[in-house]
Each structure stands twice: as C-alpha cells, then as structure tokens.
C-alpha cells in the first residue's frame, strides 16, 4: 500500500539509519523521513524519526520528531516507551506507542503530567477503521497556544477537559463519531475585561453519522451550561441550566439546521431552524420562534444594557411575548410579535402603560395592521383610559388615521398620526383636539392646588423632531370663570433628564373671588387679566417669564378684604402688615379699589417686581384705592428672590385667613 | 434736513454700539465658571464632608 519512491539505505555501527525521500498516501504525504535506530537499554533499542514535512489534506507540519528511549520490535508487537513527540512551535509531549500487527491496532498514550493524560486507540481492517480517544483532565492551556492570537479575541486563561470521543471511517471519510466531553474551570478574558468568562462548566454531547447512500452527514449536539458566569459587553449571564440543542444535515454545499432549541432558564425557549450556504456564506433561510418569553428577564438581562441612553433605560417590564422572525438571503422578511398582558412602568414615574395586548405583524415589503390595546396608564402624571390602537405599519413608517384617547373625563382625539424612523431617531406628528377635561380632575391628577373649570383645545399640529415637542396652535383653558389661551407651546427633551417647557399664556377675565378663594389668599372681588410671556419651565419649575397681572376692563364689584391686603403687603416684607394693623384701618373688613396691578420679571431666580405703572420708579402701586373706604397698597421692594417669594406665598396660603387684631 | 441727517448718524452709531455690545456679551467668564464648577464638584463629591472628617480624625 505504501509507495516507496527511493530507498537508499546505509548501515552504521551499532544500529542503522534509513532515509526515505517521501511517502505518498491518499490520506497523507510525508517528505524526507530519517529513521535512526541505535543501542539503548539491554534487549531494547533507541529509535529516532525525523520527518521534514507531513501533509494531511490542507494541514502541513514541519520537522516532526518522534523519539523512543526504549524501542522493542517483537513478532506481533512494536513497542515504544518513554517516547517524545515534538512539532516545533506547536506541541511537544511525552508519548508511549504500541503497535499490534495481529489485530492491526495502534495505541498511543500520553501522560502529560501526573493527573493529565490522553489515549488514542486506532484499529483498522481493510479500508475501514475505528478508534477512540479518552481524555482525562487535559489542561486547555496547551490548546490555547494553538489558537490564533488576535487582540480582539478573548484569551483562554484556564480550563480542563474530560471525556471520550469514538469514531469510525473508511478510507478518507469519517463515517460516524460520538463525543461526550465536559469542560471545567474554563476562564477567558480579553485585555480590557469586556468579554470574559469565569469558572465555566459545560457538558457537550454530540454525534455525527454519514448516510449510507448519499453523501450526507447527519449531526446533533447538546450543550449544557452548568456553572460559571460570562460578561460579554454589555450582557452578563450566569449559568442556570441553560441548554442548547441542535440537529441538522450537512450535504457538502449547505448546512441545514433542521431543529434548534435554546432554553434560557427564567427567560423562555427559542426555537430556530435554517439553511446556511457554505460557498456564498449566506443565510439562505432562517426562522426564529420565541414562545412565552418572560419580558422582565428579557429586559433585565438583554434589553436594558442596550437601552441605556434612551427613555426606556429604567423601566419595569412585565408580561409575556411570543415572536417569529423569518429571514431570507440575510434579510429579515417578516416579524410577528404578540404581546400578552404586558406592562411598562417608568422607574422615574414619567409614564406607565398597563395590560398591553397586541398583535404586531411586520413585513419587509408591504403594509400591515397592528392591533394594540392598552387598558390604562399615565403620561407625566395625567391618567389615560382604555384605548385600542389600529396602527398601520409600512416598513419603518407608522400611521394612525384616528384615535380617541380617554384622558381623565375628557377625550384626546388624535388624527393623522404618523411616525417614521430616521437616522436621527424617531419623529412623529399629529393633529387633534382635546374635548373638555375638568380642571378638578386634572389638578387632582397633577397633585397641584385644586382648580375649577375646564381645559380644552384644538391642536392643528404637534410635532416631535427627535428632541423637542412643539405645538402649533392654541390650548384653551376655562378656569376661574375666565379664559386662558396658551400658545407657542414647546417641550424640549420632555423625557430627558431636565425637561424644558416654553410657552406664552394670556388669561382673561379671571374671577378674583374664585381665584383667591381657591388659594386661601384672603377674599378679593373683581376680575383680572394675566399675561405671561416667554414662560420657561426647567424640570417643571419656572426659570424665566414676564408676567403682568392687571384689572380687567368692564364694570364689576371691586372689593378687597383686609386679610388680602395684609397678604399682599406681606409679600413685600413684614413691615407693612404691622403698619396696617396699628392704623385705624384695621376696623374695616373690606375696602374698595379702583385698580390692581402686579408685574414680575423672572430672571435667574430673581423676580423684578412692579405694579400698575409701567415706568420704573422707586416705588410702585399694587392696589389703587377708589371709593369709601379706599386703600392704596404700595410696593417698595423691586427685587425679590423667587424662592423667597414662593416661600412667603406658601406661608400665607397655608395659614388661611390671618388673624386680625 | 440736517437734523434728520444727525438722527440717522446717531442711529447708525447706536446700532454699531449695540452690535459691539453683543460681541462683549459672548465673552466666556472663565474664572466664574471655574468657581461654579468647584462648588458643584465639592457638593457632588462631598469634599467638604471629607475635609471635616479628616479634621475630626486629626483632633481625635
């Protein structure tokens, strides 16, 4: 069977040396083989073989050396003890070789260290062969040296292998193989520690069978992750009976994955199948099915690290989801996502949506209709009612012709809602209107001072450009028997860390009696207009505005109680109150006034105050008397810290009616 | 006519002054910013508390 090309032999003193130019075999080729047999132990010889090059298929090894300190040649056995195999820059290990010519068996054993060993047994009969490998505690360090040293690849730090591999074949083809291996104490890490695993234990069971007639290779494998932890930026996972099993066929051209299932404990099971084309390196088809996936675990373990810089960075996600993803030629063809009783609650309490049930189909080409229902929820403290959303999906565009969203006791109507995903993120716009919402309900929901009236509006266009929400149109409120019109409303980063709101507001004909009654300020009768221009709220607190409060035009009763006067004076400081209390005026419960006015220009935490007059003087009139008994209230302090003013206001309104002595 | 001309000259002058002011306003107050930064950093890192603790430790 071996074909010797040349055989120039020469005998030497106490032994012999042999030089072969080459050996050619369908399985391997060897070039320049030197065999030297010398004197060794009594009754045994010493063997040394050096092969300049061995080639098996595409693998080439150079300068392969085998030496045997104790070499014996008997009738049916060739023995090599205390041997050594060395392939420069690859491996070198101690070895013992036994060749039994009667059973055509070769047995190779290597005791690497005291506890580390492997054995290879190979037996052949005619053209067929079979064998087994037993591995005991072999350290992976030696294998690590074989792996390519790439900077971006994590380096193997430690690990041990135990197990057996059985195989059989004929000529150059492998017919079957069974593998049962366990890897213990496996650790790996890259330089930066961003892709690392520690103390990992995995059990691998795999098998391979060539079909008798066609050239197809059936394979199956099962991998159990039993111990250890892995951090693969940005995902962390610890072992907890995770399990992967796969079954497939390889036909020389494509790898067919007939059936795969990945079971993650506490998360759910993923099933997949597909065909991978070897020559074009393309995924011909692929299908992934996920059943009853626990969204809380999915969010914590997988999604959260990817959503870190978004609005959804800190949410509570509960419920289940099923999905099916189909790929063809490396591209996603369709997705079907079903949500089952899903709730999304923001940890910062900015929004919450409860009991979402949805069927969301998506196609690579063509439009689909989403059926989504939300039981209830809230956005920025405003509660929302049950809503059914019939969304139209078309690739990366979302369209909603009409939606009526219950907001408290009113209805927010959305029309022509359209959203699209662009390079700069999501953008959306809609128009619509708000049918009256009672202010009682709204103020209660927002946990602010209770107010009476209604809020309604027509919104020609609301637009989100990636960071800002701007409202074109006006929002109308009916409060305190008057009207409020809000325009130029703009929200900057509404879901960001420091949301800003900008707006202008014009309030007309507010009933002072209702207003002062609501805030327990002390009774005042009359009507006022308030203009607030260039209002800016940061984190929902005012940081900038130009406010002007003034008496409305028209005929109405203009009276002010002593309590209110004291409170107005108290806003400017304590001194004025005492002055009134000491004066004769304290005998009157009520006074008449002709006009009231107050201005506040808020700049950098300071309120620059003014009164009825527009020109800046050292003092200003807040209440201008008229009739009998009349009273005029003057202000002297033009510059007041905003916080100080708020504190004073809170003190006054919380004390209710001040006591009149 | 002359008065009108003076008016225009003054208007132009004033506008120039105004635009000059704008450039002055853009000037970044580096020292103030540093002071503000130090104040915030001391609060965030609680450096004042640390100093106090150190003092107390020394006194003990």
């Amino acid at each position, binding site marked *: 069977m071996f074909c010797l090309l040349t055989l120039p032999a020469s005998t030497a003193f106490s032994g012999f040396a042999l030089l072969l130019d080459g050996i050619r075999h369908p399985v391997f080729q060897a070039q320049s083989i030197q065999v030297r047999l010398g004197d060794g132990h009594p009754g045994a010889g010493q063997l040394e073989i050096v092969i300049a090059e061995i080639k098996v298929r595409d693998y080439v090894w150079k300068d392969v050396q085998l030496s045997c300190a104790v070499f014996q040649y008997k009738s049916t056995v060739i023995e090599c003890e205390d041997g050594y195999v060395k392939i420069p820059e690859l491996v070198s290990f101690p070895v013992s070789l036994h060749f039994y010519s009667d059973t055509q068996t070769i047995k190779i054993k290597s005791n690497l260290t005291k506890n580390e060993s492997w054995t290879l047994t190979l037996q052949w009969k005619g053209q067929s062969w079979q064998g087994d490998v037993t591995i005991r505690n072999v350290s992976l360090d030696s294998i690590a040296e074989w792996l390519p040293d790439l900077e971006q690849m994590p380096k193997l730090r430690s690990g041990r292998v135990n197990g057996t591999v059985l195989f059989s074949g004929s000529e150059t083809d492998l017919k079957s193989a069974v593998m049962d291996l366990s890897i213990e104490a496996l650790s790996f890490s890259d330089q930066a*520690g961003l892709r690392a695993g520690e103390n990992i234990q995995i059990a691998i069971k795999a098998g391979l069978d060539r079909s008798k007639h066609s050239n197809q290779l059936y394979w199956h494998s099962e991998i159990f992750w039993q111990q250890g932890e892995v951090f693969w930026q940005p995902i962390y996972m610890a072992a907890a009976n995770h399990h992967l099993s796969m079954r497939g066929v390889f036909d020389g051209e494509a790898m067919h994955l007939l059936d795969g299932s990945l079971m993650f404990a506490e998360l759910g099971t993923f099933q997949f199948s597909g065909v991978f084309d070897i020559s074009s390196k393309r995924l011909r088809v692929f299908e992934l099915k996920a059943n009853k996936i626990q969204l809380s675990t999915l969010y914590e373990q997988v999604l959260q690290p990817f959503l870190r810089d978004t609005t959804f960075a800190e949410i509570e996600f509960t419920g289940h989801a099923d999905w099916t993803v189909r790929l063809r030629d490396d591209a996603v063809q369709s997705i079907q996502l079903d949500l089952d009783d899903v709730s999304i609650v923001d940890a910062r309490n900015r929004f919450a949506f409860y009991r979402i049930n949805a069927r969301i189909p998506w196609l690579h080409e063509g439009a689909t209709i989403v059926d989504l229902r939300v039981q209830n929820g809230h956005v920025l403290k405003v509660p929302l009612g049950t809503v059914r959303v019939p969304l139209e999906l078309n690739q990366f565009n979302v369209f909603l012709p009409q939606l009526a969203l219950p907001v408290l006791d009113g209805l927010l109507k959305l029309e022509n809602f359209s959203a699209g995903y662009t390079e700069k993120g999501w953008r959306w716009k809609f128009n619509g209107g708000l049918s009256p919402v009672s202010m009682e309900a709204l103020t209660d929901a927002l946990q602010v001072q209770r107010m009476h009236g209604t809020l309604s509006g027509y919104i020609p266009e609301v637009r989100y450009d990636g960071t800002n929400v701007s409202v074109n149109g006006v929002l109308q409120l009916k409060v305190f028997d008057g009207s409020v019109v809000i325009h130029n409303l703009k929200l900057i980063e509404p879901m960001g*860390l420091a949301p800003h709101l900008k707006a202008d507001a014009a309030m007309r004909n507010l009933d002072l009696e209702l207003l002062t009654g609501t805030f327990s300020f002390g009774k005042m009768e009359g009507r006022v207009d308030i203009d607030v221009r260039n209002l800016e709220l940061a984190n929902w607190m005012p940081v900038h505005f130009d406010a002007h409060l003034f008496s409305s035009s028209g005929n109405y009763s203009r009276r002010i109680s002593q309590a209110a006067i004291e409170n107005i004076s108290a806003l400017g400081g304590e001194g004025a109150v005492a002055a009134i209390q000491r004066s004769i005026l304290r005998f009157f419960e009520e006074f008449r006034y002709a006009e009231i006015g107050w201005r506040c220009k808020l700049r950098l935490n300071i309120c620059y105050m003014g009164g009825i007059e527009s020109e800046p003087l050292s003092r200003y009139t807040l209440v201008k008397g008229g009739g009998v008994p009349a009273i005029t209230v003057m202000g002297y302090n033009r510059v007041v810290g905003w916080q100080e003013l708020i504190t004073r206001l809170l003190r006054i309104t919380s004390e209710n009616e001040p006591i009149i002595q | 006519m002359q008065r009108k001309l003076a008016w225009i000259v003054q208007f132009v002058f004033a506008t120039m002054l105004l635009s000059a002011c704008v450039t002055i306003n853009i000037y970044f107050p580096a020292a103030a910013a*540093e002071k*503000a930064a130090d104040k915030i950093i001391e609060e*965030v890192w609680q450096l004042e508390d640390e100093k106090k603790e150190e003092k107390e430790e020394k006194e003990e």
Partner: protein
Amino acid sequence: MNNCAKYFLLLSLYLLFASMSMPGFAQANLEVNTPAITSIKQRMQSRHAELVEYYNSGAIGLTQDGMITVRDANAVSLAKRQQVNSLVSAENQDRNALYREIARANNHPEWESKIRSTFGQRWINLARNGWWYQSGGRWVQK
C-alpha cells in the same frame, strides 16, 4: 425733533452702559441654582456613593472632556461589570445635562462646550489621590 434725538442719544448711551456692565456682572457669578441643576446635582451626589469604590480601584477614570469611562473592567467582578457600565452611562447622561443646563440657565447655550472643558479640568484637579484620569490620550494616576 431735537428732543427726540436727544432722547435717542440718551437711550443709546444707556444701552451702552447697561451692556458694558454685563460682562462684569457675569464675571462675578455664574447661575447654578436652578431647579433643573439642583435635581441633577442631587442625583449625581447619591450616585457618587456607588461610584467611589470604582474610582478607588481604578475600574473607572476621568476623561478630559468632563466625562467618566470604564478604564479597567478587570478590577471589577464579572457580575458587577454591567452595573459599572450602567453607572458610568447614567453619570455621563447627568454630566451632559448638567453642562447644558448651566449654559441654558445663564442664557448662553453656546457656552456648553466651554463649561464642559472647565469642568473637565476641575474634576481632575479635585480628584482624590489614587484616582485615574486621562491626559493626552493616556491614563495617569493621581
């Protein structure tokens, strides 16, 4: 007409004066006491208690542009690496918001980058001994 011109001259002088005094005023103080800044500051303060052990161990370090970054993840156990990532990301979001809010509070949004670089220097300057910071693309221990 003459009165009008005089008035205008006065007005322009007044404007000049008002605006001249502006830089002086700004130089004296930078507004940092808005509600937005205060809430960002409080969040950062409470987060610092968690971050400090990672500054000490060298797992995270300060960058020159006023941010923080993971310097050596190996100094942290595998299970905590994700948490360190989250902390760093949340801290950087707050730092970005802080610089932007200071610029906005002072009515100069264009100052953001200068405020950022000022902070960048000051964080490093006030860092404790043993903490790491970036300097010219390299890590230096204080």
